[in-house]
């Protein structure tokens, strides 16, 4: 039986715990706190929570001012609004001065589903990875989300953390320890490597299980930190397995696939395949339907691995 849990709920609970430990933590939201689950923090620490209303640009500016005055600021909204709606503010107010603001966005990717393409955050990772000084994290499950939020709170600088709406399968035990910018080898293997992030990590593990039954021995890497990227893990995987598949819930450009390819191309070029959303938007539908149509599935990853192996 697969146990599932919500990354955004993990975030909401972690914030409360951190709020107790550190009175300098201030949380901002843009009218979405019941959904982003910053509502837990708002309930326990009403004086340190500000609902900025439907004003993402203003929220980022306020976050910058608080951080410049010594606060550790968490700012939350949906991933689509946290990236596209306030990019200029992220650039000038957070990235350039390097301020201590943690943008933690929920409802990342297409698994928002029924709300449709306007709500599908599929460019956010490209945008945030483009900003100098930002650290960009996509946790694979609720356990990792909790650990990542703790790390983010205690590490100075601007961060982007992308979480999901839906509950996702747990891939880690409770005692998992998160290390920033250090990729996690989830499964050893020598024939090919699947590098995944977020919800695609569980699917990559399933794909590797299936491929093992076909005598294909896959390494699976959870690249939870997109920036700074663990290039050593990529080069090692390329050298030792000779083929790489990158799986992510994002458009083809600028996300994990682009970043892994850039690292591999420089140090150790090998055949690579990419499982992502290509260059088009999805539509309304259930999360499962949309993932299926886009090929962001266990079967999709398996096919990609076989294609990459064929090019070895």
């Amino acid at each position, binding site marked *: 039986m697969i146990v599932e849990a919500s990354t955004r709920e993990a975030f909401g609970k972690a914030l409360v715990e951190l709020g107790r430990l550190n009175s300098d933590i201030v949380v901002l939201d843009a009218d979405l706190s019941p959904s982003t689950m910053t509502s837990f923090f708002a309930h326990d620490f009403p004086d340190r929570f500000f609902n900025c*209303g439907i004003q993402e640009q203003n929220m980022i*500016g306020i976050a910058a*001012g*608080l951080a*410049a005055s010594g606060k550790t600021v968490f700012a939350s909204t949906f991933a689509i609004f946290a990236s596209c709606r306030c990019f200029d503010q992220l650039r*000038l107010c957070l990235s350039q001065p*390097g301020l201590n603001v943690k943008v933690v966005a929920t409802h990342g990717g297409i698994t928002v589903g029924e709300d449709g393409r306007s709500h599908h955050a599929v460019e956010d990772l490209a945008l945030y990875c483009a900003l100098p000084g930002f650290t960009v994290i996509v946790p694979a499950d609720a356990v990792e989300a909790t650990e990542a939020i703790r790390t983010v709170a205690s590490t100075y600088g601007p961060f982007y953390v992308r979480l999901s709406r839906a509950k996702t399968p747990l891939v880690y035990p409770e005692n998992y320890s998160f290390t920033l910018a250090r990729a996690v080898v989830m499964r050893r293997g020598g024939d090919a490597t699947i590098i995944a992030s977020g919800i695609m990590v569980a699917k990559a593990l399933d794909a590797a299980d299936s491929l093992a039954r076909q005598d294909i021995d896959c390494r699976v890497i959870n690249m939870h930190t997109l920036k700074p990227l663990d290039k050593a893990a990529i080069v090692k995987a390329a050298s030792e397995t000779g083929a790489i598949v990158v799986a992510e819930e994002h458009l083809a450009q600028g996300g994990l696939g682009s970043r892994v390819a850039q690292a591999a191309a420089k140090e150790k070029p090998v055949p690579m395949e990419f499982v992502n959303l290509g260059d088009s938007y999805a539509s309304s539908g259930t999360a499962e339907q949309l993932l299926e149509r886009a090929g962001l599935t266990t079967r999709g990853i398996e096919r990609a691995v076989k294609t990459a192996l064929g090019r070895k």
Partner: protein
Amino acid sequence: MPDHNEVSPKSASISSKLNLSTAELKEMARRLRRHVITMITTAGSGHPGGSLSAADIVAALYFRVLRHDPGNPQWQDRDRFILSKGHAAPILYAALAEAGYFPVAELATLRKLDSRLQGHAEAGLTPGVEMSSGSLGMGLSFAIGVALAARLDSRICRTYALLSDGECEEGQTWEAALSAAHLKLDSLTAIVDCNGMQLSGWTRDIMNLEPFVRKWQAFGWHTIDIDGHDLNQILSALQKAKKTKGRPSVIVARTIKGKGVSFMENNVTFHGKAPTQVEAERALKELE
């Protein structure tokens, strides 16, 4: 009249240079304008018009009103000055140098490679600069964050944000206007340098902002409409803002773009163009 003798205990150590008389402030504003002309001419590029229009406001703040310590730019209880109209960086640099944050000689490095005086000001690079600016409409939001932090920490410092009228065309300015009033941030004062012009012409022709004061009133702000070149009016307005409780104040300062240099006044050409050497000499003569 403003009570410029009112010295808070914490500012007692700050030199009398930061508590000038009104006559001295007038002289300081003239000096700052001279710096602006020299800096931008030396740099060969920049925005003289919007720096000259703000000179009297900036002089009043840095040399009378703000509680600050140039020897300790990170003093936690300092009043904050947020320059939202980032293209007016030269007037800020001139004030910071005259106040003692860095040597006046450094003003000659404006816009040069490796200078601390970037074309638009950068936080963390230049002593005394609180916020990076250069994309318009963001300063008031930042100032809200600064004022909120002070409130959370029970610090009594005040926050001042200097905006241009042109940048009030940016929607974010009005997001911030809404939220500052909602949060009842009476420690926040916005000053709008209303010189009536923007890069491509008169603001009233490009995107009319009037009735400007009534807009701020409708957003819940205490408004003070003044002549932004009359130091007595500026000081009095800042004092009224300080005494206003329960809501933020905005000083709508009616100014003249390029003020102090006859051929730059109300001349949109000098929004973003450096004077030639000959023009600079004429300008400096007028500012003697």
